[in-house]
């Protein structure tokens, strides 16, 4: 899809579209590029050495890259994100599906061509975490079925990352840029594109507070540490902070002001996160350890409120009328 240059220039003059353009060029497109590069590096490593120990470092690098754009649920990643990152797995699909593949040595597990037809629970970063970190999965040897499965999974992940990057760069970026133009049903005005991206910022922070941190916290009487995201790899706290970093960075690209309060709120989030005693969040049955995680959760919410006040308020952006008040 191409839009005339003149139209680009005219629309770029409106502040709303300027924010959208900066979000794309400074945050989103480089983010998907970085993830594609990291996922490809993981695939290359796995081709040479599929063992869990060899893959932990490039897997972590790919996950770090994913956090920069992984909470964007629009365009190619509206559903495409879920086969890269299937979490939470409330029904326990991931271990069950992987276990069945391995027990039956199903051919699809060693065929990168057809693996994309697999259940999303057996694909992507979280399924790989299961293979690399779970005691009953990670002890596989070179040449085993599991080894070939992991190679297939990393090839599939790299292919997905490449497709998502291309889908954003060559397709959906233009949908955002052409907001308000004839026939754009997704964004009927330039402001709708800006609002769409702003909503992604708030949804990401809400998910981090309520689910990434809230799910393991459970209730005071019954904390659920093994419901933490990526607890096996010890990424639970890092993920919360990295996703909040990314949401804040996206908000700053959308803004036409320096956003000093938002930057302060993010700095404060890093401070309180540094005081958490176990980055895997596995000690939250201890009340004082739990309290430190609750403070992180509160600060993620405070960060979200700060962004609402500093970005959403001045731009006249509000949460969805229907999505906020069900019937």
């Amino acid at each position, binding site marked *: 899809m191409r839009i005339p240059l003149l139209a680009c220039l005219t629309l770029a003059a409106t502040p709303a579209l300027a924010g959208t353009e900066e979000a794309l060029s400074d945050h989103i497109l480089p983010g998907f590029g970085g993830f594609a590069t990291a996922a490809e590096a993981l695939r290359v490593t796995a081709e040479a050495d599929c063992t869990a120990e060899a893959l932990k470092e490039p897997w972590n690098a790919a996950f770090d890259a994913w956090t920069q754009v992984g909470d964007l649920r629009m365009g190619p990643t*509206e559903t495409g994100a879920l086969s890269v990152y299937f979490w*939470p797995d409330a029904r326990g699909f991931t271990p069950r599906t992987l276990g069945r593949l391995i027990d039956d040595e199903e051919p699809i597990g060693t065929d990168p061509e057809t693996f994309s037809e697999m*259940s999303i*629970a057996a694909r992507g970063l979280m399924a790989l975490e299961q293979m690399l970190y779970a005691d009953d999965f990670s002890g596989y040897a070179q040449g085993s079925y599991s080894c070939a499965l992991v190679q297939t999974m990393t090839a599939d992940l790299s292919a997905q990352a490449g497709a998502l990057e291309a889908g954003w760069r060559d397709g959906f970026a233009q949908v955002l840029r052409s907001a308000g133009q004839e026939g754009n*049903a997704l964004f*009927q005005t330039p402001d709708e594109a800006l*609002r769409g991206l702003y909503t992604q910022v708030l949804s990401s922070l809400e998910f981090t507070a309520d689910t990434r941190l809230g799910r393991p916290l459970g209730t005071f009487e019954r904390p659920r540490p093994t419901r933490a995201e990526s607890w096996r790899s010890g990424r639970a706290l890092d993920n919360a902070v990295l996703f909040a970093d990314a949401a804040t960075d996206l908000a700053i690209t959308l803004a036409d002001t320096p956003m000093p309060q938002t930057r302060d709120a993010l700095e404060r989030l890093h401070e309180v996160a540094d005081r958490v005693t176990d980055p895997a969040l596995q000690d939250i049955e201890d009340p004082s350890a739990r309290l430190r995680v609750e403070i992180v959760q509160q600060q993620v919410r405070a960060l979200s409120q700060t962004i609402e006040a500093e970005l959403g308020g001045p731009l006249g952006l509000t949460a969805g009328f*229907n999505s906020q008040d069900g019937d």
Partner: protein
Amino acid sequence: MTTRRTFLASLLAASASPAVGWAAVGNPSYVAAAKLPDGSYMLAGLREDGTEAFRVPLPARGHAACAHPERAEAVGFARRPGSYALVVDCRDGAVLHRLTPPEDRQLNGHGTFSQDGALLYTAEQRVEDSEGVIGIWDTEANYSRIGEFASHGVGPHDLRIMPDGKTLVIANGGIKTDRWDRTKLNIDSMRPNLSYLDADGMLLEQHEIPEFAQNSIRHLALRPDGLVGFAMQWEGEPGMAPPLLGLHRRGETPLLCEAPLADELAMDGYAGSVAFSGTGDEIAITSPRGGRLHRFDDEGQFLGAVSRADVCGLAAHDSGYLASDGLGGIQLVTADTATPLTRTEAAWDNHLIRLRS
């Protein structure tokens, strides 16, 4: 042919009811409520092309939950806790009647007219225990309350008259709520059901979905041959991705319509409206939380998704569906394609009500 008797009858009807028909308000095909940028509320009539046929003020936020089949009157239900409903004259927004349920009843936001428009049925619950009640109002007698019967479930939400003109189908949402703050009280033990009642309130048929007991059955769509679509809202653990649409035909077992897992997850466990397409060979649900619409064929097979932020209102259109959203957009959905028709500086409320087919 006009006989003396029908002539007299029409004369009588005219004198009994000074109200006018929908032609007098621009022949809208749909009505919908919306919030305006200044914080006030309106009720609008929309034509097939999405343009406004009329616009009148509403005194408070309310759903355009139902419209009289002939007279240009719409009923707006007050937001929770549902202590009143207003019958609004669509010519000027005048409140023609204020419906107040008995003291120990709460209106639950939906109602439906009998086919001839003589009666209005409202979904209500008993204040003390959320047991469902269907209120009956006589539209020819200043909307006076003339009776009620049990809905045969807890917390009824949507209700419709079946194509036979006499059977009621009711979505008993199953959720017990606190009388003051509407806190949900029974999420762990809720049992929503789909119930069919005759005109006297006798239970004819009832279905639960035991494998998804925490899926509140809330909204209904009907096809002229009696196929019922029911949309659900998940109250259980997030991320379970349950089916959000069911299809049912009297005497059969309900069929649950599942989307692929990634699509189901993107709906965020919530369907806000349901409608059959204009041809009736497919059905769709909307999720304002997921910002998307899911289409299924009439045998429950997933057909595809359409994305649109805060989409919720949905109704049949001759070419597919008309969808409204909180950003003020009205879109025509035909197969996988959404075409923007109009955009108003207003946030369209949850439902889009079709006046005639």
